[in-house]
């Protein structure tokens, strides 16, 4: 069963939850590259939830973060209370015409670093999974 926490847009709270999850992953023996990827993906997902998902909501509106960790797999889900978005409609920041746009790279980084990424139909929840690569 997943652990679940509510977070408001407070940097100390956000960092505390991220650190807790990264520390657990570290205790399970995940390598530093995985810890880097995990922290990066959580940061991008949480920032997206507050900055985009909650853009029109009261500042104290919380998001939820659910997480489960095992030696083989890390799952983190971030859900906001906003109206949701359509991931396919987000401009691709890696296209030549978008390279000079400052923002919009969070989703690309999440997809690059996570083994699996899934959005719910409403588009207000992202589920991310990191698995240990199988040895050849």
């Amino acid at each position, binding site marked *: 069963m997943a652990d679940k926490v509510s977070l408001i847009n407070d940097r100390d709270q956000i960092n505390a939850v991220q650190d807790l999850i990264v520390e657990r992953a570290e205790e399970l023996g995940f390598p530093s590259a995985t810890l880097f990827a995990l922290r990066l993906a959580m*940061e991008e997902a949480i920032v997206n939830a507050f900055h985009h998902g909650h853009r029109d909501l009261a500042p104290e509106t919380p998001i939820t973060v659910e997480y489960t960790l095992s030696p083989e797999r890390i799952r983190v889900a971030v859900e906001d209370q906003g109206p949701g978005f359509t991931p396919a409609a987000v401009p691709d920041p890696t296209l030549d015409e978008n390279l000079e746009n400052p923002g919009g790279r969070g989703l690309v980084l999440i997809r690059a670093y996570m083994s699996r990424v899934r959005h719910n139909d409403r588009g207000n929840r992202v589920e991310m999974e990191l698995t240990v690569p199988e040895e050849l």
Partner: protein
Amino acid sequence: MNRHRTLRKKGEFQMQDAALPVRIDSLDGVTVLVPRGDIDMSRAPSFREHVRRAINAGAPKVVIDLSEVEYMDSSGLATLVEAMRNAKQASVALMLCGLHQKVLAIFEIARLHQFFKIEATVEDAIAAS
């Protein structure tokens, strides 16, 4: 105070302030910025201000040495893209150097390694045209 912990090489963590320490050197008329620590959402505004001042100070070239930055997320990328745009408008040559492999990987995923001029060392960046 806004504080957070950053991933360390040894897998340890260290508390850091939201203000990003940035050393500023002047070598052969080139301004060299050396930020130290993580560049994330909480520290990107501080970094942005340092870079903005350097670009507006009048030096023909500004080098950002990222050799002491071991973590950066999309807020750091956004800050640097904005800096490059500002540098172009001000006719300042902006170059990056010293990127750690993990940080360089983020640039490559975002295809920004094609947008920035990136050199291995400060000396290379200063010598590059």
